[in-house]
């Protein structure tokens, strides 16, 4: 457990610095609010209609595909640690695993699910 102390210290410092910076600007900075200053400007636009609209399903496909290949990488990590002892056997089993997912990747590609038309 003792080896996590540096992480705890790092976390504490990250929070401390964030609080310090935001707090300092809040206390020291001086604020004048005018109507023009508080209005939306530059890239901000007045919203038209409800802002909570349905998302496009394209985002969902990208998220789903990301998730699946993310899990594939999670499987690769413990494999990388033991593959030295497994020799050829370990290599072949991972090859089968990756090959099955590669079929999926080819399917997605050919189907055009990666295109943003």
């Amino acid at each position, binding site marked *: *457990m*003792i080896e*996590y102390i540096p992480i705890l210290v790092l976390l504490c410092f990250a929070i401390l610095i964030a609080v310090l910076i935001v707090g300092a600007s809040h206390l020291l900075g001086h604020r004048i609010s005018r109507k023009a200053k508080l209005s939306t400007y530059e890239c901000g636009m007045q919203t038209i209609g*409800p802002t*909570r*609209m*349905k*998302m496009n*399903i*394209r*985002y*969902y*496909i990208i*998220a*789903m*595909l*990301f*998730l*699946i290949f*993310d*899990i*594939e990488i*999670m*499987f690769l*990590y*413990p*494999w*990388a*640690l*033991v*593959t030295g*002892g*497994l020799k050829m056997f*370990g290599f072949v*089993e*991972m090859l*089968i*695993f*990756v090959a*099955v*997912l590669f*079929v*999926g*990747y080819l*399917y*997605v590609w050919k*189907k*055009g*699910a990666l295109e943003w038309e």
Partner: protein
Amino acid sequence: MDALGFKFILFMITALVVIVSSILMATRKNPIHSALWMIVTFFAMAVIYLLLNAQFIAVAQVMVYAGAIMMLILFVIMMVNMDKGDEKDTTKAPWSFGKKMAAALLMVILLVELLFGALFYRMTARVGDYPADAVAAAGNAKTVGALLYGQYLFPFEVASILLLIGIVGAVVIAKRNK
């Protein structure tokens, strides 16, 4: 303070965070707020895994659950009817007495099961094949790897088929009109 006491206090704090945040998750009206409380639960669970010397599971929990799966859940929430997020859903009828009793009974059964399991292990002093300390000595990710790519080879290979079904399913459902 010794290491065991420190661990105990840390466990108590994280367990409290898990319980409170999961209750908040279940009771929020706004689904986005529920999802955010769920992330807190996932992170606290990761700390509990770390306390059990299961570093690999903890990292997987944060990366896959708190990262990827949460993103998927948020997308699903945003794709279904988001306009009624804050409003109370009046279309659904309140639960009937029978339904409530069934849910309560299920809860009691699970709690009793949990208690019996804990008591059984406490009284017989039995441990599993991979206790936390032994795994910590060998290295958690290494133990997982040795098991996954040795003894549990078939489930591992079947998992790739499962992921393939996920890919095909997502594409078929989302790109139906092509």
